């Protein structure tokens, strides 16, 4: 039911502007590659494991190729040409040899060799993509077999012990207690590592390293619990960071179900270079699209650094951009967990109605997207009694506005990463609200022309204005100017820029080709 009476003309205009603002960024992404994109290709093509220092063989291999011929051609042809030349048929073995300096890389001059290398690379990459496809089918089968989450919103809980073997029982306990989605928070340092750690890990700060093995262990444990509970429990991790493409590939191969993947989070909140991020982001989303993974975007974060009332329209703009980039990368609406948050200062008069207006605007702008609804964090204090109250009103907005994914707020938000009991209290809170007021949306009809409608129209209007400015100045300029989250991030600064390369004329990437339906 339409509750805001948005003007379809204005909505269409907002989308058109977003497309216009996004087009140059897409062009940038289509014409560049990064070390992580190439590593992701090699992971799909079968490179596994790490050296004795824990540096993954994909890193060693890409570095070796790059040292010899640069990244502009893509690594696939040099690598598979070398395989043929060296007579090696295990790409990990090649990586090990290359690391020892025993292989040199180049683009074959001969057409036949080139074609053969492309064909071999495509074949190998397809093996990886087949795994991804099988996982997707498997997910659909398990959801049928075990049953799906019993209702919307899905209840989303985090675990963050730093130790995968403490995380597992906590995640299982959380699932038993009612979680539909488990997110394993990542260690604070990981997103700036330009490699993905290997194996099961037990030491993270405020989170657990995202590794393929940790993904596998957690998914297996949750499969067990899903069976026990008779409902499929989803697993989430983070793509964002310097290894976005690889995270996406690993998530696809290990049947993760959702991934945090925002087009700008890394830029704004991890000071990663904008171009690096946009290139990585596009590739990673193409992989998610193929894997049937739902992405979660990060607009909620803007409201932790900027004011949630003043900056409300920046959230809307970012959602529109994220939608545009996602569609362009092949994601469908049901895969768009666009982010927003309950972050208005509770002292602001009408704060609750403002929250309702903002949440409803997101709901009606993106009617087919699940939407990720984030709890209060910034205005949480050590007053845990007040905290639990705010979380309750957050849950109520979630129920009233049909949010798809409800991140469960914890009363100890300002104190500690959640304790076992915090999670239990928080779930009890969610359950009370959904059970008692889950259908209240039927009785909630913003007065025509009233406060809520007016506010929603105002935010949409401001969003359109901002988009107009962005179209005029370019996205990269807007980001440099601190438009989002008041973080100023110029295009020539930030981490990981040296991992970016412009495509040469002969750039070849078998995964992109497959994902874009090229031959």
């Amino acid at each position, binding site marked *: 039911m339409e509750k805001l009476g948005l003007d379809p003309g204005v909505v269409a205009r907002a989308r058109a502007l977003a497309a216009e603002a996004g087009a140059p960024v897409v062009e940038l992404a289509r014409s560049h590659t990064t070390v992580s994109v190439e590593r992701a290709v090699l992971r799909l093509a079968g490179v596994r494991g790490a050296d004795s220092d824990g540096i993954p063989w994909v890193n060693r291999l890409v570095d070796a190729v790059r040292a010899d011929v640069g990244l502009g051609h893509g690594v696939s042809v040099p690598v598979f040409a070398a395989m043929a030349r060296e007579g090696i048929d295990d790409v990990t073995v090649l990586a090990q040899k290359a690391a020892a300096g025993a292989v040199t890389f180049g683009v074959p001059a001969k057409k036949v060799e080139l074609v053969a290398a492309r064909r071999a690379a495509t074949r190998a990459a397809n093996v990886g993509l087949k795994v991804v496809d099988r996982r997707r089918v498997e997910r659909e089968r398990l959801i049928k077999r075990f049953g799906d989450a019993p209702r919307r919103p899905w209840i989303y809980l985090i675990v963050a*012990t730093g130790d995968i073997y*403490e995380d597992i029982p906590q995640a299982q306990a959380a699932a038993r207690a009612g979680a539909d989605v488990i997110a394993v928070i990542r260690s604070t340092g990981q997103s700036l590592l330009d490699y993905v750690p290997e194996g099961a890990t037990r030491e993270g700060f405020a989170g657990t390293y995202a590794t393929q093995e940790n993904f596998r262990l957690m998914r297996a444990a949750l499969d067990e619990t899903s069976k026990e509970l008779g409902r499929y429990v989803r697993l989430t991790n983070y793509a964002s960071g310097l290894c976005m493409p690889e995270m996406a590939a690993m998530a696809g191969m290990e049947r993760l179900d959702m991934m945090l993947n925002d087009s700008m989070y890394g830029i704004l909140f991890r000071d990663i270079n904008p171009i690096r991020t946009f290139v990585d982001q596009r590739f990673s989303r193409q992989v998610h699209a193929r894997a049937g993974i739902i992405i979660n975007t990060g607009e909620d974060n803007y409201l932790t650094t900027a004011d949630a009332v003043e900056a409300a329209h920046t959230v809307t703009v970012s959602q529109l951009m994220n939608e545009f980039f996602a569609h362009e990368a092949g994601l469908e609406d049901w895969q768009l967990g666009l982010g927003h948050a309950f972050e208005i200062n509770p002292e602001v008069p009408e704060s609750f109605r403002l929250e309702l207006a903002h949440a409803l605007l997101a709901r009606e702008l993106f009617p087919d997207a699940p939407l990720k609804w984030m709890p209060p964090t910034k205005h949480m*204090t*050590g*007053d*845990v009694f007040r905290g639990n109250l705010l979380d309750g009103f957050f849950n109520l907005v979630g129920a009233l506005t049909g949010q798809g994914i409800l991140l469960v707020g914890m009363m100890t938000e300002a104190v*500690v990463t*959640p*304790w*076992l009991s915090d999670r239990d209290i928080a779930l009890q809170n969610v359950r009370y609200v959904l059970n008692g007021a889950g259908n209240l949306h039927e009785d909630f009809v913003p007065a025509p022309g009233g406060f809520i409608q007016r506010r929603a129209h105002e935010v949409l209007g401001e969003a359109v204005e901002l988009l107009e400015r962005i179209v005029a100045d370019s996205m990269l300029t807007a980001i440099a100017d601190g438009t989002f989250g008041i973080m100023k991030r110029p295009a020539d600064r930030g981490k990981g820029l040296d991992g970016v390369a412009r495509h040469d004329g002969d750039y070849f990437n078998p995964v992109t080709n497959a994902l874009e339906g090229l031959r």
Partner: protein
Amino acid sequence: MSIVRPYGDTTGDGMVQVSFTLPVTHDKRAEGAAIQLANKMGLDPAMLVHAKPMGEGFTFFVVYGRVTHLVDTEKVQVVERDYPLLSAKDVNAVIKRKLRRRLSVVGACIGTDAHTVGIDAILNVKGIAGEKGLEYYRELAVTNMGAQVSVPELVETARAQKADAVLVSQVVTQRDAHLQNTRAMTAAFREAMPAGKRPLLIVGGPRFDELMAAELGVDRIFGRGTTPREVASYLVHALLGDQK
């Protein structure tokens, strides 16, 4: 393992939450005072996470931290149920066989306490938590005197009904009203009846410490969440002995 510690999010982390008010005006010293108290309670380190001035001269604090204390579960003192839990049928059967008359029970809220929901939950047919109350037991003769019953009235009625057991409820605890009333009640029964003739004296209510029975002069105390079956089973156990 008999030694455990509080659990925040990792085994052995010892984490607890504490809140309290101190009669001091909020400033840095007040926060230091709060930490001093938390330290005395065994929190080390103590994290002061919230301090809020309330009215004049009072500050409310929330403190989180690790306690150094260990809990030895072997040394825990509790009143464990030391009698078998019987069905209504079995309770009736035992009374019929062993007593050969109905067992007389008199219940009341004494003093100024008017909270009858608890004693009614135990006595009335309706019961609680899916269990029927004692009135439902064919072999129990129940007299429920209701609320705000004086001790002399209670003793009188117990005598008149030839009570085998007297069940008293106490919910209000401010200024230890429940303890004072219970002591007055047991004293009156001791005075009114010789040891052998005295009914079994039972008190219940959500804030009693079940370990205090001897101190209060009662035979048994029932706390939070008691169900009628537990009481019925205890009655036949205490009055009619071993069920074999």
